[in-house]
C-alpha cells in the first residue's frame, strides 16, 4: 500500500511540474511524434498493399497454370481449355455456362497524365464470364466489351493516371483501331488494368495459347476434388492453385521489402528519439534533484521513485504516439503511393496506431530507465548539499 501511495505521490508531483519544464517535455513529445509518425506511415504502405492484394481474394476462385510454371505466364492450348470446361465443381452462370475465364495478357504502353512518362500496363484479353468470375467488378460508366470486336474496357485508375482512356477514346494497337467503351472498379484494386475480348487479342497478336485460365467453383470445399480431377487428366499439363496462395506468393517479395524498410527506418528513428528522451529526462531529473532528495529523506522508497519516473516518461511518450499516428493518418491515409513499381493506397488503421503506441511506450521506458536509476541512486546528502 505504502509503495502505491508513494508511487502516485511522486507521479502527481512530477506531472504537475510539466509546465515548468516545457522544453525537455516538448523535446520528448516531438521526438516520439516524428518516430511514430514515420513508422506508422511506412507500415501504412504495407497495410495498404496487403489490403489491395488480399482484400478481394475469394476462396472459391482457382487459377490454373502450367505445371511448375509461373502462374500468369502459362501456355494453355485450346484443347486443354476445352477439357477444363467439363471439370467437376465449377460454378454455373445464369445461362448455365461454366464460370471459367480464359485470358491472354499483353503489356501495352501508356503515358502518365502529369509527367507524360511512358509506362507499361497489362492489356488482358478475357472472356465474357469475367463479370461472374469477379463479382467485385462494377461498371461505373459505359458497358462491357462485345465479343469479337476491337473494344476495350479500362479500370478507373487507368483513366485517372494515364491519358487516352476516356470513353470513346481510340487507341491504335498493333495496327488496329480499338475503342474504349467502359470504365469499371475492381474491388480494392488500384492497378490500371484493361480488358478486351480474348479472341480479338489472340488473333491480333498472333497467339494460339492462353496465358492463364481461372475458374470459380461452386464452393471453396470443391477445391480438392477439382484439383485432383485436373491432376488426374492425362491430357492436361496443369496445376490448380487457390487464388489466395497465388496472391500470397506473388506479393511475398513486395511485403518483405515493405516490412524491412518500415521496421528498419522505424527502428533507427526510434533509437534517435529514445536518445533524445534520455537526454531530456536527465535534464528533468536533474532539475528535480532537490525535490527527489527531500522525498527520499522523508522516507520515500527508491523503488517507488524509479517506478513513478518510468511511468512519467512513458506517459510523456503517449501524446507523441497519438500525435504521430494522427499526423500519419491526416497526411497519408488514402494517398496513392507507387514505390517499387506497384501502386496502392496507404491505409492507416487503429491496429497501426496501437503499434505506434507500443513503440512509444518502449521508447519512454528505455529512455527513462537510466535517468530514473540515477535519481534513485544519488546519495541523499550529496543531492541536498548540491543546492
Amino acid at each position, binding site marked *: 500500500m505504502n509503495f502505491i501511495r508513494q508511487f502516485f505521490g511522486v507521479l502527481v508531483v512530477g506531472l504537475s511540474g510539466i509546465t515548468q519544464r516545457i*522544453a525537455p517535455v516538448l523535446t520528448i513529445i516531438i521526438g516520439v511524434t*516524428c518516430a511514430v509518425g514515420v513508422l506508422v506511415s511506412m507500415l501504412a504502405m504495407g497495410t495498404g498493399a496487403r489490403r489491395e492484394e488480399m482484400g478481394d481474394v475469394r476462396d472459391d476462385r482457382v487459377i490454373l497454370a*502450367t505445371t511448375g510454371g509461373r502462374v500468369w505466364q502459362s501456355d494453355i492450348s485450346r484443347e486443354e481449355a476445352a477439357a477444363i470446361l467439363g471439370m467437376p465443381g465449377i460454378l454455373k452462370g445464369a445461362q448455365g455456362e461454366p464460370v471459367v475465364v480464359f485470358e491472354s495478357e499483353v503489356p501495352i504502353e501508356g503515358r502518365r497524365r502529369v509527367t507524360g*512518362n511512358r509506362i507499361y500496363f497489362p492489356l488482358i484479353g478475357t472472356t465474357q464470364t469475367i463479370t461472374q468470375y469477379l463479382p467485385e467488378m462494377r461498371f461505373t460508366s459505359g458497358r462491357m466489351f462485345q465479343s469479337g470486336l476491337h473494344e476495350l474496357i479500362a479500370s478507373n485508375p487507368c483513366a485517372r493516371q494515364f491519358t487516352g482512356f476516356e470513353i470513346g477514346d481510340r487507341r491504335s494497337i498493333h495496327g488496329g483501331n480499338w475503342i474504349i467503351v467502359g470504365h469499371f472498379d475492381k474491388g480494392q484494386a488500384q492497378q490500371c488494368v484493361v480488358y478486351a475480348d480474348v479472341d480479338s487479342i489472340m488473333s491480333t497478336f498472333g497467339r494460339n495459347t492462353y496465358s492463364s485460365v481461372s475458374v470459380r467453383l461452386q464452393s471453396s470445399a470443391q477445391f480438392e476434388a477439382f484439383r485432383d480431377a485436373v491432376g488426374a487428366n492425362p491430357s492436361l499439363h496443369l496445376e490448380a492453385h487457390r487464388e489466395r496462395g497465388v496472391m500470397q506468393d506473388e506479393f511475398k517479395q513486395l511485403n518483405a521489402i515493405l516490412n524491412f524498410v518500415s521496421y528498419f527506418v522505424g527502428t533507427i528513428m526510434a533509437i534517435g528519439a529514445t536518445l533524445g528522451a534520455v537526454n531530456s529526462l536527465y535534464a528533468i531529473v536533474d532539475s528535480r534533484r532537490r525535490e527527489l532528495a527531500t522525498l527520499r529523506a522523508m522516507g520515500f522508497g527508491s523503488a517507488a521513485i524509479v517506478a513513478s519516473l518510468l511511468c512519467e516518461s512513458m506517459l510523456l511518450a503517449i501524446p507523441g504516439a497519438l500525435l504521430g499516428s494522427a499526423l500519419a493518418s491526416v497526411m497519408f491515409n488514402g494517398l496513392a503511393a507507387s514505390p517499387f513499381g506497384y501502386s496502392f493506397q496507404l491505409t492507416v488503421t487503429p491496429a497501426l496506431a496501437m503499434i505506434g503506441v507500443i513503440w512509444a511506450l518502449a521508447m519512454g521506458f528505455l529512455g527513462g530507465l537510466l535517468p530514473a536509476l540515477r535519481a534513485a541512486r544519488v546519495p541523499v546528502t550529496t543531492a541536498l548539499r548540491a543546492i
Partner: protein
Amino acid sequence: MKFLPLIWAGIWRKPGRTILIFLQVSVAFALFGVLQGLKTGVEHVVDEARADLLLVHGSLSLIDPLPLAMLEGIKSVPGVRAVVPVELSGAIYQNPSQKVGIVAIRPDEGWLAAFTFTIAPDYDTAFRNTRTGAIVREGLLAKYGWKIGDHIPLIFTTMQRNRSTDWAFDIVGTYSDSDVGGGKETILINYAYFDEARVAGKGTVKHFNVAVTDPKLVAAVADAIDQRFANSANETRTESLRELAQSQMQSIGDLNFLIRAIVSAVLVALLFATATMMMQSTRERTPELAVLKSLGFTDRDVFLLILAEALVVFIVAAACGLALATLVFPLASRYVMGLSMPMIIVAVGLAWAALVAVVSAAVPAAQAARLNIAAALAGR
C-alpha cells in the same frame, strides 16, 4: 588557437549529455546516408546502363514476339555492326523458390559485341559447339553446387514438343555481366536448340540486341531501324539499354517523395531535441560564461565559442553516422541493387549537420553573448 582548449572543455563539460547528442546525430545521419544511398543507387543503375547498345522490340511492349526473319532487315540498316536474336523464358531448379532466368541467344560470330557480358574465349567456343550448352552467371555455380561439365535438369515455363516442361542443359562455362540491372540468376542457352525443341511460338524472339559501328550513330541507327519496319505487321521500337533502365526506374518514382518525407521528419526531430539541449546547457553554464566575459572575451567570442562547440560535435557525429550507413549497405543490397554513397552525398549530409548545429545553437549562443556580467555572476 586559444579557443581550441575552451571548445574541447566545453564539449566534455557534461560527457553524458554530449555523448547522447553525438549518438542522436549519428543515428539521424546514418538513416540519412542509407536513404540517400538508396536514391543514388537507383540513379546509378541508370547511369551505368550502356547507352551504345540497342534493343529492338515490338512497338507495343517488351514481350511482344517478333519474327526471327526480321534479323536480316535489321542487319541491312547502315551502321549496324551485329544483331543477335534474344528469346526469354523462365525456369526453376529443383523447387519453385529457386527461379532462374533463361536467355536464349544465337551466338553468331561477334555476338558478344551486342551484350554487356564477358565470357572467356574457350567458354564461348564450347557454347557455340554444344547445342544443349549453357553458360551460367558467375555465382550460380556456387549457389547450386554446379560444376562446368554438369548436366543440369530445369523445369521451364516453356513446353517442349513432347509437352514436357523438363529440359536439361550442359554447363560449358560462366559469364559476368557489367550491367548493374542485369539478372543475377540467369543462364544463357542456344536459341537454335530452344526454338526447335519448343512447341509454341516457333521462329519468334522477344527482342534483338544490336551493336553499332560508331557510338555516335546510336540515335540515328535506332531511328533508321524503326523507320525500316514502320507500317509493317511488326512495328518496332529501338531503345538503348539506358533508355530502358530509365523507363523502368520511373516506376519507382515515389521513392524520392518518401525519402524526402522521412529525412525531413528526422531532421525536424533532431533539430528540436538538440536545440533544447543547447538551451539547457548554456543556462547551466551562465556563471562560467560570465567569468569568460569578465576576463575580456568579447560578445562575439562567446557567441562563436558556443557555435563552434555545436559544430564540432555535429559534424564529427554526422561523419560517423554516414560511415555507419555504408556498413549497412551490404544488408540492404539484398533488396536494392547498386547502393552507393558518392562524395556529394557526404558533402550534403555534412552541410545539413552544420546547418542543424548552427540553427540549434544560434539562440543559446546569442543569449550567452548578450549576457550581463554583473547579473550573471550574481546569479540573477
